[in-house]
């Protein structure tokens, strides 16, 4: 590979540093000798120049100033020992500050998003928080409780986002009814007593949803009447079903008995 002149010059300078003479070095590159020889001699002359010597008094004067500064700094640090802790561990302090900032931002967003409704900027954060909460919950009872909480939230959101004469938010209506249904799935994995409590809670949730839908119905737009009626009927059916599940003997139901798995699905 053909070397550039700057690389050849550098090689020759290294050779001279190792004790070779300029003539010896240049023998390897006779074609460049004329150009590079004056440069090598110039570099040699510069290197041979006596080093500028600082005045010892000037050095001592600086060192005295620095010692005085160091004493003053120490006195300051004694007064502000808290500050010293921070100056010794800037990376640690920065890490703590970042973590605290993340916690603060997270907590604030979560708090603000709790009151949000569909269409709000923070609503996706609310749904995401719910997903995280649900994923982190291990027990079936806990998951069932969360479904009920979410069902209640969707019901409130439906009321808050509803405007007289306008279309009902169908996505929200679906979510509201499905959350209640999902809570009931966990009743089979619970003990008889806990299952009964859960069924009772789901029953109350259905009743509440039914009442809310009945209040909305007269104000809803005509196109939504069928959907609202279907949802009200479903809630009533579910409520009847829950009553049977809680007390099959005293129920005045006639066969075929209502079964929540069949009759409570919302399409």
């Amino acid at each position, binding site marked *: 590979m053909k070397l550039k002149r700057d690389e050849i010059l550098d090689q020759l300078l290294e050779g001279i540093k190792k004790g070779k003479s300029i003539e010896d070095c240049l023998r390897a590159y006779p074609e460049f000798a004329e150009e590079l020889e004056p440069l090598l001699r*110039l570099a040699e002359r*510069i290197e041979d120049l006596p080093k500028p010597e600082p005045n010892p008094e000037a050095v001592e004067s*600086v060192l005295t100033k620095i010692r005085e500064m160091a004493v003053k700094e120490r006195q300051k640090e004694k007064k502000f020992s808290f500050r010293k802790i921070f100056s010794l561990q800037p990376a640690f302090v920065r890490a703590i500050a970042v973590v605290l900032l993340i916690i603060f931002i997270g907590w604030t967003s979560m708090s603000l998003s709790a009151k949000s409704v569909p269409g709000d900027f923070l609503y996706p954060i609310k749904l995401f928080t719910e997903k995280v909460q649900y994923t982190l919950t291990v027990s079936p009872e806990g998951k069932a409780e969360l479904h009920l909480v979410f069902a209640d939230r969707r019901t409130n959101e439906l009321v808050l986002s509803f405007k007289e004469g306008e279309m009902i938010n169908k996505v929200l209506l679906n979510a509201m009814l499905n959350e209640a249904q999902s809570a009931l799935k966990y009743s089979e994995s619970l003990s008889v007593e806990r299952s009964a409590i859960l069924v009772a809670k789901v029953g109350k949730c259905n009743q509440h949803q039914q009442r809310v839908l009945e209040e909305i119905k007269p104000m809803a737009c005509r196109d939504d009447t069928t959907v609202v009626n279907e949802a009200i009927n479903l809630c009533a059916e579910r409520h009847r079903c829950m009553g049977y599940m809680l007390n099959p003997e005293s129920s005045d139901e006639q066969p075929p008995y209502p079964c929540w798995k069949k009759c409570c699905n919302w399409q």
Partner: protein
Amino acid sequence: MKGNPSLLLRREISDDNLALIIDNAKKDDTDSLTKLCEYVYARIYSYIFYRVNHREDTEDLTSEVVLKMVKALKRQRGNFKAWIYKIAANTVIDFYRKRAKRSAVSLSDFPGEIPDKSLPISEQVMTQEKLKDALNNITDEQKHVILLRFIEGYNNEETAKIMGKSVGAIKVMQFRALKALREYFRKKGYEIKA
């Protein structure tokens, strides 16, 4: 070094020892801080010497650099040498900037500070003054390379780190700087012979 024996530190501190001294100086160890100041003073002195015209200015600016270093040492991260030469370069720039402002008011306030470039270099001996004069006639980066490579004695890798360039770029700059200096000397009638 003559005069102050402690300034022998100039050539004798290995990179590992220097790193240890810097660490201890950051932890307020007075001995290490003193050693570091002496080391930096000796190095920066010769660097600034070739960039300003008066010995008094060299001393003042070197002291300023060392004091700046001490004040900012605890916040220093990365390559120490690159950091300290950056402080030195900025201090010299500030010095010329201030002087330019003052010169605009009255040039007669500074008699003799502006080098007389009309003087021919007749003596066939390289001197500090000749080199200083020639360095004023090449680019700032070329000047930097000459000072670090041939006055301070850093190798290509160290020079590259200090200047924040690649080794290849340093080789190119070194070649161009020597050529520019040679050209300047040739014009001034100073022939470099064996």
